[in-house]
């Protein structure tokens, strides 16, 4: 038990002191390959409390949810339910232990009725084991009455609002008499009014004695709803405290400060505006986004998952179409109907998911590198292997890809080297604007530093770079300017010299005011290990 007791944490606010906690985690760890998603996490969840779980992207919140839901099995540690050590081996056993999860996106069957969805797993039986439809409708109606929700239980789910579908998920959880209810970002697609209704129902559910874990990116909701809050960072438990003893600044300070090795951006001459975006909107994804990217500049796009960063990149690369706004390249308005037009205009996009979108895994390095430029490289249709190899080799040498040769299949490379091949592939198109979406996710430290070096070199050579990253230290170290998004809107544009993790996190969580009290200086950069020959990341250009 490594709970950091915050003042008041032991005041026995919710739940009963004598009874063991509803859920207790002791030293739970989970690794995926080289990365520790959760390290030695201990926390508890009491009956009759709403317990908020917050943290940056990658802090381990989802992994914890998935462990409780039986999707992942922890590598180490114990889970106790009402004091009994319990193995949750799969989603069925989570159900059997009456642990219910309401996901961000409701997972219902649109063509079945509300009542059928609620009782899908265990419909009420009548004589001869046949499903008793009348009993099912009656029980469903009773459940919704208990929640004080009016809903036609015979109507199909298709056509119901997202909010109603969330409520059906909650009713489903209640129908199985859940002891533990996990709400994973339930408010992401709800309006303010719907959020209020949801909260009323969640509170009512808590008062009936259910232990509720509430995962959210929205700090105001954490404060409005939760009794206690736990912060995760880098897969570790940082603090658990009674929510009303905390301030938003406290929470943010605990969330940020991840330890990461970096290679900060070097000096580069900032040139003319290459790309300008005005009022760019894609309905349902992002609204009224405006920014510029200059030659030699790295623009960081920061924000929490779902803030709309990748969606903006997809529009800039012609994969998706904007519903409003304009994109100008060199001052001229452009329209990209397909990625091939965007490529032709000099925009390249290193996608977030390199396995799915970036590479053809059983093509060789050379075949992958030349894929976007084949028609340009060989206007007479016939491919010359020697030309391809030479070209690919020049990029793999420049980017220091560790390989046995350019004929090697990319699936045989490590993650970091695969990422370098993706970058090589886009550099070979000779872009003027390069968009990098989470370029160092899942790569080892050495490769990460090299990717940062490559970015610096590219900016110095006059490219305009847009960097999308969920790692605040990376954004801080590499960006000349930082654009922060919150739920599809730009909430801050911060110059390099003014940027701190706290400022970014405030904007990213939708907090309007920056922290009042001056923050301890140096906190943001204290953990950036500068490699030799690099200056402090905080130097102002």
């Amino acid at each position, binding site marked *: 038990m490594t709970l950091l007791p915050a003042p008041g944490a032991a005041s026995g606010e919710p739940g009963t002191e004598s009874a063991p906690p509803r859920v207790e985690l002791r030293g739970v760890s*989970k690794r*995926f*390959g*080289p*990365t*520790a998603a959760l390290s030695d996490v201990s926390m508890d969840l009491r009956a009759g409390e709403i317990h908020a779980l917050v*943290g940056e*992207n*990658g802090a*381990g*919140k*989802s*992994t914890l949810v998935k462990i409780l839901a039986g999707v992942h*099995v922890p590598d180490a540690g114990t889970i106790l339910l009402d004091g009994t050590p319990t193995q949750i081996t799969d989603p069925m056993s989570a159900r059997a232990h009456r642990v219910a999860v309401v*996901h*961000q*996106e409701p997972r219902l069957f649109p063509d079945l009725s509300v009542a059928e969805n609620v009782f899908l797993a265990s419909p009420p039986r009548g004589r001869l084991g046949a499903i008793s439809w009348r009993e099912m409708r009656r029980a469903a109606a009773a459940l919704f009455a208990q929640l004080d929700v009016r809903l036609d239980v015979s109507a199909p789910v298709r056509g119901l609002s997202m909010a109603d579908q969330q409520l059906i998920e909650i009713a489903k959880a209640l129908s199985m008499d859940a002891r533990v209810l996990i709400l994973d970002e339930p408010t992401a697609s709800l309006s303010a009014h719907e959020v209020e209704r949801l909260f009323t129902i969640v509170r009512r559910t808590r008062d009936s004695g259910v232990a509720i874990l509430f995962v959210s990116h929205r700090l105001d909701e954490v404060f409005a709803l939760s009794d206690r809050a736990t912060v995760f960072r880098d*897969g570790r438990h940082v603090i658990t405290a009674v929510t009303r003893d905390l301030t938003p600044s406290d929470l943010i300070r605990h969330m940020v400060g991840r330890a990461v090795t970096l290679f900060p951006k070097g000096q580069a001459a900032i040139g003319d505006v290459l790309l300008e975006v005005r009022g760019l909107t894609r309905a349902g994804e992002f609204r009224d986004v405006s920014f510029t990217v200059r030659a030699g500049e790295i623009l960081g796009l920061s924000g929490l*998952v779902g803030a709309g960063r990748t969606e903006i990149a997809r529009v800039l690369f012609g*994969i998706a179409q904007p519903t409003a706004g304009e994109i100008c390249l060199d001052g001229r308005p452009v329209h990209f109907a*397909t*990625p*091939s037009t965007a*490529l*032709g205009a000099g925009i390249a996009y290193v*996608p*977030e*998911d*390199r*396995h*799915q*979108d970036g590479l*053809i*895994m*059983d*093509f*060789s390095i050379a075949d992958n590198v030349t*894929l*976007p430029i*084949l*028609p340009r*490289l*060989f206007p007479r*249709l*016939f*491919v010359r292997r020697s030309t391809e190899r030479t070209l690919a080799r020049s990029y793999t040498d420049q980017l220091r890809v560790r390989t*046995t040769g350019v*004929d090697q*299949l990319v*699936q*045989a*490379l*490590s*993650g970091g080297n695969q990422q370098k091949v993706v970058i090589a*592939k886009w550099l070979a*198109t000779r872009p003027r604007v390069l968009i990098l979406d989470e370029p160092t*996710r*899942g790569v*080892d430290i050495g490769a990460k530093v090299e990717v940062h070096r490559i970015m610096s070199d590219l900016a110095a050579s006059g490219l305009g770079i847009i960097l999308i990253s*969920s790692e605040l230290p990376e954004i801080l170290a590499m960006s000349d300017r930082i654009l922060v998004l919150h739920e599809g809107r730009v909430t801050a544009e911060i110059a390099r010299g003014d940027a701190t993790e706290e400022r970014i996190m405030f904007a990213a969580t939708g907090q309007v005011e920056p922290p009042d009290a001056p923050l301890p200086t140096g906190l943001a950069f204290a953990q950036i290990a500068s490699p030799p020959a690099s200056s402090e990341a905080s130097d102002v250009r």
Partner: protein
Amino acid sequence: MTGLPGFATDSGATDPGATPGGGAQPVGERRSALQRIPALLRWESLLLLILALLVVEGARLSKFFLTGSNFSNLVSAEMEVAIVALPMTLIIITGEIDLSVESMIGLSGAILGWLWSVGIPLQVGIPVVLVVGALGGLLNGLLVARVGVPSLVVTLGTLALFRGLANVVLGPNAISDFPPGFTAFGFDNIPGTPVPWTLIVFAVLGVVFWLVAHGTWIGRQVFAVGKNKDAARYAGIRVGRLKTALFLVSGLIAAFAGVILTARFSSARSDNGTGLTLVVVTIVLLGGVDINGGKGTIPGVIIAVFTLSVLQSSLRLAGVSSEYQAVAVGLLLIGSVTAPYLARQTRLLADRARRGRPPPAGSIAPGEVVG
């Protein structure tokens, strides 16, 4: 070591198990590019071996088997499906399929016969049916690439549509008063040789498709789309345009096959070509093309053309009735589709046996178990 992207994030969309290639990487490390080429060749050499065995067996069964006339008979009987198999190979490599080819063969012959019967010369009629074929293929392509309907459904629809149109054009009639020069093209040999004219057509088209598939960037794009269409799209490949073009070529070649079939039968009937799609697909899959797309070679398919025709000829010579020959084709189709799966499963089992026991949880993505 290699990293799985996305697992340590809070993004629900990037489930580690769903990361393709992530869990499969240990397999990739063992099999380098050099080791793969023989694996590809193995399928083709196996086919060649089967072909050789069938020829020996055929020769043992009948003294007529190894004669020039038998060769030209068995080859010319197969040439329509052989040329249609070439574009079908590329379509299946992109992950699509064209089931409508047999009806286009019938429609093309029906239109040609009708035009001839109303006095329009073949010099005009043949170009007209080729245009009809290209348009029919274009229709398939646009429905697949632009509208986004699965090709299995689209071409099942046009399979019925084209056959229906053939019936509308010709009804129950058969047109058979074609000029001798035309029908000779269908079944005559090059004078002084046992080589049918239609084999020359197949040879020329075979070389063209071989070069396009394995020598040009168009072929590279075809394979890229079949292996990973998202990555292909992100690489600026116009996936829709490529597929539309392939369906157009498929329709064009099927129409041409309809002309050849009409010449060979000396008869245009609306039911010409019925059942040939099955044979075409069997040849392509027997040639080692993966029904899931991304893998296959034109040489493999060319060998499969001859393997199938020699098999059918041997069965005929052995006195096997045509009903049982159809059974053999069906078994062959099932065999060539399941063989790669069986091979993969055997390999997985062998890998597991070599490791002794499954690796510790977490080092393997859940997705791998399926693969």
